């Protein structure tokens, strides 16, 4: 009923495409309105892990900077007791999950309005990102199943390797709402050189 606006839905730039016709080596798009939940809890507590497994079929990644995937949810390691649960468009978490967690020391916070995802792909995405990112993104070290938090163009972000987009390997950048415009502007500027296409938000 009420119109929603994703953080980048009103993003405007003079260029939606830039590059010589033979070279558009990077594409960018917002993955808007995904469900973002920040989860905190004690992984030593076996019930905690079990509840998640049972309720949403997620085995939380316990190895730093890795991602685990279930049918509907991606779960990214954020800290030894912290994960980001990324679900499909505006997915709600089942009440039963909360019920299951009750009695444990946990925190499950909806951040869906406060974050968005910029997906970047194309053959030159690593170079585009390299302009701002101090991490080693070489395929030898940053590969499928990996995620990492870092600072990109003055913004705190979470990078998630996307292995199997139909358009090939890509990267999801989870960024806070108020920084999204700045970050996208920066990425577009960095992508000028390799040629880019800005896709309509995927919602």
């Amino acid at each position, binding site marked *: 009923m009420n119109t929603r606006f994703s953080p980048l839905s009103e993003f405007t730039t003079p260029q939606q495409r830039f590059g010589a016709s033979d070279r558009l080596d990077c594409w960018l798009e917002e993955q808007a309105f995904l469900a973002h939940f920040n989860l905190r809890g004690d992984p030593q507590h076996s019930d905690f892990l079990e509840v998640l497994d049972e309720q949403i079929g997620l085995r939380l990644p316990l190895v*730093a*900077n890795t991602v685990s995937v279930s049918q509907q949810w991606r779960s990214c390691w*954020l*800290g*030894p007791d*912290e994960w980001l649960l990324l679900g499909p468009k505006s997915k709600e978490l089942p009440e039963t999950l909360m019920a299951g967690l009750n009695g444990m020391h946990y925190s499950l916070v909806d951040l869906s309005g406060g974050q968005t995802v910029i997906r970047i792909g194309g053959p030159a995405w690593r170079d585009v990102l390299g302009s701002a990112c*101090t*991490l080693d993104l070489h395929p030898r070290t940053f590969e499928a199943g990996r995620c*990492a*938090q*870092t*600072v990109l163009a003055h913004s*705190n972000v979470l990078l998630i390797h996307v292995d199997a987009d139909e358009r090939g390997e890509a990267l999801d950048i989870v960024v806070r709402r108020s920084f999204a415009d700045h970050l996208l502007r920066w990425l577009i500027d960095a992508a000028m050189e390799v040629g880019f296409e800005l896709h309509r938000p995927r919602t």
Partner: protein
Amino acid sequence: MLQIDCPWCGSRDQDEFQCGGEAHIVRPATPEDLSDAQWADYLFNRANTKGAHAEQWCHSGGCRRWFNIVRDTVSYKISSVYQAGASPPQEKP
């Protein structure tokens, strides 16, 4: 330009971190029992060691965890990294 081993995330650029200064300064349990001078010592005085210095860092641009390192304040070499709350590793003989 330090490269710091976050005990969780591994080796990262210093710009992802924030230094919290000298480690192992424990907040007095009952501040009211302290003299003004003792309180001032807790509040302001620092070892400011030239040489091996145990200090707190936070991986603020990453996992947001605090941890400790021992860093030589002259060579800037980091000799050990350990978790918050742990005591500093013994000096090698």
